């Protein structure tokens, strides 16, 4: 289809892509299987950090080798996702506590 990539890049990028996919599946299994909302909030963090992070790493590697120059604009997505994921998690947890104050763990002394 297109020009062949060097073998080391194929192996490395392939491992990164499949690893990212595995992390995404693990995070989504957590989203389905865990018991309460407070536990379920834990699962998708794997998807957004490791899943997307590894795919972006592989994409940067491949396009850098194809273009024979460093291609790093994919880092913008990483920065955006890594900055927004904790904010949305915090907002979701705050909303959950506002809806059901009884679910809050006891305050440490």
């Amino acid at each position, binding site marked *: 289809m297109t020009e062949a990539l060097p073998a080391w890049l194929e192996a490395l990028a392939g491992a990164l892509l*499949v690893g990212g996919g595995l992390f995404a599946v693990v995070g989504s299994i957590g989203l389905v299987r865990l018991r309460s909302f407070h536990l379920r909030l834990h699962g998708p963090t794997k*998807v957004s950090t490791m899943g997307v992070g590894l795919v972006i790493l592989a994409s940067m590697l491949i396009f850098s080798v194809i273009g024979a120059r460093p291609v790093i604009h994919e880092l913008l997505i990483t920065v955006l996702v890594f900055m927004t994921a904790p904010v949305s998690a915090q907002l979701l947890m705050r909303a959950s506590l506002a809806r059901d104050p009884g679910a809050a763990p006891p305050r440490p002394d």
Partner: protein
Amino acid sequence: MIHTAVTIALGLFGLAMLLAAWRLLRGPDVLDRVLAMDTLYVNALAVVLLLGIRYRTQLLFESALLIAALGFIGTVALARFAERLDSVGHRD
């Protein structure tokens, strides 16, 4: 070989999206659905990046960036909205 890896990764991300969609349909709470929506758009972002790798184009990068930005705004809006709903879905 990279073609195979992209295909496998697309399948895995598709499976992850199906699982998130199950949680989106099942609930039980509004916030569970918001969280499932959040997971769905992050997975869709990865799928767009994978398609960019498969077709060797950088044009899809901008759409992935847009999905990241707009998905975050949507999650924030829904979370702030759900904060003021009671358990049956009426606004206080």
